[in-house]
């Protein structure tokens, strides 16, 4: 068969966020009538690199990738470019590699900023804040943390982070970390979390202490979090439109692979927004919550 084949690679299919991303890639590939080779980085830069290398041997026609780590994946992407395979990156942008066809993304730093800003807007008079960070050293954890601090550090006097701990992006850890934080510091005004899983864990911890008025912010706009936002249990979650990113990326890659159509823009940036109770309809996956 002479159908085109593209590689769709995401960092870690253990997390629903990337499952959604790959599902969207799959759907769009089917819509475009191309074959898809799937790759799961399994949270390891070497695994994702190996997947790209294997794909190059198989002579895929294009690569759509959300790199686990923009630096560590750069050499593999460079290799692909050198081999003449068009590469479109999603979500995380790889600098310093010449010849990447396009990048479609929503910056995690911007997302972190949006999240913190939403919190600030909710507490015009200042607030005591818990901050739950992601897995230490992981790219999105670093960027989201940076975004949050970009906004809050200049406002230190009014917005104090009184408790800042990692919960490794995991719900169970977020629950016990928040429990410890509540016991040590009492009730905060807001809890800012680097992903929805941690937000949902923090939510359980607060519920157990009957601290139902703590405003908890998540990140990723997973359906489960959207439900919680709808029910008023979470204050908000950051939407980066991963589905839209993925579909756009596939379209760009396939267009180029078919007949060398250059993309209109090399850089498609979707602005992350914070989904609250009032703008739930803007959430990409609101349909899945029924």
């Amino acid at each position, binding site marked *: 068969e002479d159908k085109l084949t593209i590689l769709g690679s995401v960092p870690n*299919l253990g*997390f629903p966020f990337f499952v959604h991303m790959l599902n969207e890639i799959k759907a769009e590939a089917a819509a475009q009538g191309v074959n898809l080779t799937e790759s799961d980085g399994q949270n390891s830069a070497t695994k994702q690199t190996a997947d790209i290398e294997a794909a190059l041997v198989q002579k895929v026609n294009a690569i759509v990738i959300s790199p686990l780590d923009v630096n560590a994946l750069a050499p593999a992407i460079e290799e692909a470019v050198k081999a003449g395979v068009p590469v479109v990156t999603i979500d995380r942008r790889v600098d310093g590699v010449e010849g990447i066809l396009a990048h479609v993304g929503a910056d995690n730093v911007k997302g972190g900023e949006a999240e913190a800003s939403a919190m600030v807007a909710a507490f015009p008079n200042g607030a005591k804040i818990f901050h739950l960070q992601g897995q230490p050293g992981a790219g999105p954890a670093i960027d989201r943390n940076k975004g949050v601090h970009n906004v809050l550090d200049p406002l230190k006097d009014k917005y104090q982070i009184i408790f800042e701990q990692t919960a490794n992006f995991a719900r169970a850890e977020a629950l016990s970390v928040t*429990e410890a934080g509540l*016991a*040590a510091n009492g009730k905060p005004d807001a809890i800012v979390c680097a992903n929805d899983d941690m937000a949902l*864990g923090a939510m*359980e911890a607060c*519920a157990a202490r009957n601290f139902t008025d703590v405003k908890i912010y998540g990140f990723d706009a997973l359906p489960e979090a959207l439900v919680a936002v709808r029910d008023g249990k979470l204050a908000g979650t950051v939407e980066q439109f991963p589905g839209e990113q993925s579909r756009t990326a596939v379209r760009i890659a396939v267009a180029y692979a078919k007949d060398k159509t250059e993309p209109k823009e090399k850089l498609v940036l979707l602005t992350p927004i914070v989904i609250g109770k009032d703008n739930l309809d803007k959430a990409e996956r609101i349909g899945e919550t029924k």
Partner: protein
Amino acid sequence: MSVAGEQNQRGGINVARLLMSFGPLLFLAALIVVFTVLKPSFMDPINLFNITRQISITGLIALGMTFVILTAGIDLSVGSLLAFCGMVAAVVAKGGTANTLSLSTSGTQGYGWFAALLAAVVVGAAAGGVQGLAITRLKVPPFVVTLGGLTVFRGLTLTISNGGPISGFDASMRWFGTGLIGPVPVPAIIFAVAAILCHIVLRYTRYGRAVYAVGGNAEAARLSGLRVDRILVSVYVIVGFFAGLAAFVLSARLNSSEAVAGIGYELTVISAVVIGGTSLFGGIGSVGGTVVGAALIGVLQNGLQFNNVSSYTQSIVIGLILILAVAFDRWLKSRVRR
């Protein structure tokens, strides 16, 4: 082989013996004192109950792991098995994988907490049994079989859940994770009851004696008429059962079963058992030790978070203290012996 250094020397002076078996306990007490001095609210009952609730999940698995390690075995699959059983429990509780995202219960569709609990422990025990059979029949070392299990069960979990969580259980199920009896969290009570039962089984039953014998010298056990293979299979069934029970409690507590649950738990659980004085070479150890080991880890984590120690520093401190706790235990034992 190098069991000599770890022998459970008894028969010395009684005070010495007592002290000796309390090495980890003394260390735990010291930690609690330090944390209380640093921040007196550490001793706040709420926080103490938090700790008991937090250690109950890994603690439950550690009880089962004690049986396994007493036979000189090991089970690396417990973290994945926890996720798997949790997912099974969720599917049963929700009556399928559809409608998995609602945080509130789906009402009439599911089969209720009892069926979910049953499913979790049965699946856990069965999975453990299969691994036990692979160990005894195929003669593949426990390390390899359960390392394979670690990967397989994670894959199965992701497959049935398609990577996502299943959330929203009814109040009766959630009670097992979040409820209180008096001031005491239900998970802590479950853990305590399980620990007492395990202690009784290991210390006072014929089966417990057999477990120690198999771990102490498998060949001598066989020649003494023990059905070594059956006993080996049984300990993996037990640890699987506890992984299932822990999974149920965890799901109830989080109101959600996640595919990524329990990653890395095997090391925490094994740490708890080993810090508690159980020898990885088998034949030596106790449930009491495991409980203390689990408590030590829990107190350490909670205490450091309580003092808002940076997560990088936490890693360093936790690693060092694990080593020191065991070193202290060894030192105490060697002192008492002379």
